[in-house]
């Protein structure tokens, strides 16, 4: 199935080559969870501070429990802030 992986700020370097505007549609195994997706693209877990699935925050403890479905969007940031 396909999901959208979005990696921002310093994590952009872990995106696959076909990524455009910090996001890429990627093919993954059915039943994959958020943590496994992050691992698959070798994004260091400790740098994954803010993880949103379809815009909703997933705490570190929830990531391996959150199973993705086709069309989901996973967006990840290192520690950032502004205002």
């Amino acid at each position, binding site marked *: 199935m396909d999901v959208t992986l*979005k990696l*921002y*700020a*310093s994590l*952009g370097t872990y995106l696959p080559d076909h990524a455009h*505007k*910090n996001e890429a549609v990627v093919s993954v195994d059915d039943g994959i969870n958020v943590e496994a997706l992050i691992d698959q693209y070798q994004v260091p877990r400790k740098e994954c*501070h*803010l993880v*949103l699935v*379809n*815009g*909703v*925050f997933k*705490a570190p403890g929830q990531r391996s429990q959150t199973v993705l479905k086709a069309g989901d*969007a996973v*967006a990840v*940031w*290192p*520690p*950032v*802030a*502004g*205002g």
Partner: protein
Amino acid sequence: MGWHRKILRINLSKGTVDVEPLNMEWAQQYLGQRGLASKYLINEIDPKVDPLSPDNKMIFATGPLTGTAASTGGRYSVITKGPLTNAIACSNSGGYWGAEFKFAGWDMLILEGKAEKPVYLTIMDDKVELHDASEIWGTTVWHTDDWIKTKHQDPMMHIAAIGVSGEKEVLYSAIVNDLHRAAGRSGVGAVMGSKNLKAIAVRGTQGVAVKDGKTFLKATMDGKKVLAENAVTGQGLPTYGTQVLMNVINEAGAMPTRNHRDVQFEGSHDISAEAMHEPRKTDGKKNLLTNQACFGCTIACGRISKIDENHFSVKNKPEYWHASGGLEYEAAWALGSNTGIDDLEALTYVNFICNEQGMDPISFGATVSAAMELYDLGLLTTEHTGGIELKFGSAEALVKCVELTGKAEGFGKELGMGSLRLCTKYGRPDLSMTVKGQEFPAYDSRGIQGMGLTYATSNRGACHLRSYTVSSEILGIPEKTDPLATEGKPALVKAFQDATAAVDSAGICVFTTFAWTLEDIAPQVDAACEGGWTPDRMMEVGERIWNMERMFNMQAGFTGKDDNLPPRLLSEPAKTGPAEGRVNGLEKMLPEYYQLRGWTADGVPTNETLSRLAV
């Protein structure tokens, strides 16, 4: 110490300069800067005064840590009654002006009256002079800065000035120091213009003494270590700046778009921090040149940008081809998402003009977006706009609007009223996305519930810098809360409001609080100042300031009914994203907030609360 214990009072009507001792009893109650200057202002003006009359006063105030070795210790605030809101105004700025003013030996400058003719002020330590400004009246902030330095043959001066917009009393005009740092909100620049005061140039050669130098150095070094080792203040902010929020807030479904009609902007990536880092397709160069720090800052979040010389906004205008202050998140949102414009170069140019002419880009952009909605509905036409096709998404229209508003010419005069007065004039005040007359910043409160309460109760009108619950609700600092929940938000908002008021009174930047708590700040204040400054005492000072500001606003005519949001946010559900189908739950949060504050059900501080806080 920390304080010089010395105030400069200038009556512009009489041309008099007086030196007064700082009221140290008040300094112990209100610390400095925002709190202490508000105490002075409230003690000296009629709350019902016309903000643009000579009877209004304005105060430039530093905190006890301004000009010291504390990280970010370069802040000053301008406190006055604001013309945009008719409420208390307190606009905070960085750069180098605040520290230089402190080096000249002053804690505060109180300006009274109105000069008969345009003047500018020079403060060189104890030498304080008013000068004829007729040659620079009608010119920009940037020209004024250069002209004064040349005239006085001193490139080391630091200058705070207004542009033409301030002279012509555009109601959200700013005071800009060091070319592109601003006391931006609530129209403090218009108050300066109403006093016929063009600029204040400062040069100081004195230091700032602290109570216990050895302890102070250790406390400030400890604080800097915390900032350096924190991933946000040590890496995220210096590299990406505040603009990194563009994609975060959009993804979270809280990006006000097209005057808050939508909560997600399809062009957000094109105007984001990531886009500023990427080579442009047009010339292969990046929009962002480097980051920049204000005085004493070890974070350095500021953006320095350069516009593509062939972009339509600056083509054949070499005066805008240099590097200057680039887009911060709030400006990029207001000028971009909220107008539906995804042209990064155009937004950078418009931001340059806001700096050059001294205008708040948040209120300017939000007012243009409201005008675009009026145009979309046929309530404004090209007859009103002088031929500008004011469509959402039109970078050309935005560029024309900023050039006109900066000079308060043509349709720019109407835009200069701010969105509430503009929308009221054209029969749709409900389309003004404001609280107490001030335009919203960059967070839609249907997707971040706590920000609805923050905006509704802010003493200076809609503002994110009075209680930045985004930090907790989205970014997880200091701990994550659910942005869609209303439960727990009244206490969160109150805690942020009180702590921020204390930080704003110390002379440091609120961005330190992404890493610091009051446990980090209080030891620095305590080593600098007499008084036994603990975190608890700072929270008490913050709560006292909040209630004092509230009482001023009530005496100025505001009531609990003004703690409200535009109907769109309370009745039109978000269309997309995690908040789809939701409105802001202000009615669930406000009663509990009043209770936690020790206010009546109508939002009035009780005598018991005022007595407890010694307001």
